[in-house]
């Protein structure tokens, strides 16, 4: 897997150079993908001419909502395309939002990308418009991509270990003293029944409540099997979102990308499922034990 970046100066620069890059892939028998918004896809169809018929175009206009879901979406797409070709070459335009926090979150995502597909024969080139992005975002490009194409391909001398990048960008979890606390022992069915009662009390719609029940079951199961048992459960609503926090008696873990990487043999499924089904998952050491907090 290669995960590189192309910082371009203009749309013309983007179109000409990515078209050349993709044609090289076609000549090598690779499956080639252009991922962009509608305007970018239209531009690339023009630039590629007849070769466009041999490309896969993916509209990413509304894809980047949550990092965990974006990782899953790309992984699913790559796996599907790898059934048709021995390797995949993808050019993907990224979508950063307007705030510094948003940049941090999606810079973390870029770091995670280095690990998320490392078992797949894919070459992903993320494209960044130099003139339309702030320096902070462009600095992050150098931290999260092995090689960067500007005038030519060159290794980034500022590339950092992806886990270190994620760790430094993670926000400290809030204490949330207003959450309600309960304990029902280690019985997962009783755990779900109690949680379902709280979800109903907070008027969480049934389909969303089910997502939390499944996600929380995964986390509670981990607590029982690997965390020395459930010590306490805390629930409530903050910022309009229902929260369930499971505190266990174990040592916890210190992997900032836990749950972001697709389940494989030897890699757990629980946190991945929890991240896919909830808005956010945080893990941290609290005074009562190791806590995993899910925001619905």
């Amino acid at each position, binding site marked *: 897997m290669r995960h590189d970046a192309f910082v371009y100066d203009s749309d013309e620069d983007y179109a000409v150079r990515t078209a050349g890059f993709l044609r090289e892939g076609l000549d090598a028998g690779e499956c080639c993908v252009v991922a962009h918004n509608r305007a970018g896809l239209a531009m690339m169809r023009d630039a590629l001419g007849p070769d466009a018929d041999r490309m896969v175009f993916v509209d990413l*206009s509304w894809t980047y909502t949550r990092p965990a879901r974006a990782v899953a979406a790309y992984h699913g797409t790559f796996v599907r395309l790898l059934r048709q070709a021995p390797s995949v070459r993808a050019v993907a335009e990224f979508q950063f939002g*307007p705030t510094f*926090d948003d940049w941090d979150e999606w810079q973390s995502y870029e770091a995670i990308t280095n690990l998320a597909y490392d078992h797949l024969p894919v070459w992903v080139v993320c494209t960044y418009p130099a003139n339309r992005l702030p320096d902070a975002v462009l600095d992050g490009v150098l931290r999260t991509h092995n090689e960067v194409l500007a005038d030519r391909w060159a290794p980034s001398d500022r590339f950092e270990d992806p886990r270190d990048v994620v760790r430094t960008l993670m926000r400290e979890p809030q204490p949330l003293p207003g959450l309600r606390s309960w304990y029902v022992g280690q019985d997962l069915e009783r755990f*779900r029944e109690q949680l379902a009662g709280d979800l109903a009390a907070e008027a969480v719609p*049934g389909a969303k409540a*089910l997502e939390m029940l499944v996600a929380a079951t995964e986390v509670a199961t981990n607590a029982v099997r690997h965390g020395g048992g459930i010590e306490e459960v805390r629930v409530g609503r903050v*910022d309009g*979102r229902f929260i369930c926090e499971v505190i266990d008696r174990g040592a916890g873990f210190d992997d900032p990308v836990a749950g972001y990487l697709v389940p494989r043999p030897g890699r757990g499924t629980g946190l991945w*499922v929890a991240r896919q089904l909830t808005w956010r998952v945080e893990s941290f050491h609290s005074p009562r034990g190791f806590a995993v907090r899910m925001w619905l």
Partner: protein
Amino acid sequence: MPRRGYPASTAGPDSRNVPFDDSPVPAERERERALVAAAEGGDEDACRQLIESFLPAIQGLARRFAAGGGIQQTELTQEGIAGLLFAVRRYDARMGTPFWAYASFWVRKAMQDLLAELKRPVALSDHAVRGLAQIRAARRDYIDAHASEPTADQLAGATGFSRAHLDSLLAVERPPRPFDEPVGTDAAGDLATLGDTLADPEAEEEYRHVLDEIAVREFARGLDERERTVLWRHYGLGWPPQTLTQIGTSLGLTAERVRQIEAGALQKLREAAAEPPDVRGT
């Protein structure tokens, strides 16, 4: 410590016609966050309330972009609503940024992307011209049969074109719409047009489309009826919660059998959530 963002020219709150922004009342801010969270979770009423609340601001932006020439305000409004709903799915209240300050960036971006897409030089091939003729014929047939305008999906179905192909063909043929008639001024004192005052069926369709996309995440669709019944009743999802014995009695099953059905259903849901989705390509 305050953190910087984009320059004010490309982001930041649009102060006109914004119902929640800069409210000094924390309860209002809390209500806004709850509304956004509910909308992100697929609550259609919450989506509708958000759209209605921010529609004047979106239309204000659309008016400014449309003034640049070449594109109808209604199309920009529709795209702006899609941008707003994207912001709903990405907005993180923990960031402390008011929703509109965040969302207006995506609304503008959606409009800018539409402008970029439509202002490309277009040279229609013979093949494209024939495609447009097929679309026009399908539209006429539909109106004759149903006395109403077909949706884009219906046109795609009637012509056999993919939605992306259909959209790309329609993008080059955009009849002007008489929505520019002045009808007074809006709350900000700007000239309002007839288009501002009308419900926009295209915008309605667009946000329904986004809602459908959200609903795709409803991962319980793989359950059969009995599995749903067991889970929904046991955990009180729209029902008063029941014990496994009560559910078993109503279904003619033992409590143990109901427990097995529930375990199987939870395993199915786990597997569904673990399976990476696929981004549709063309």
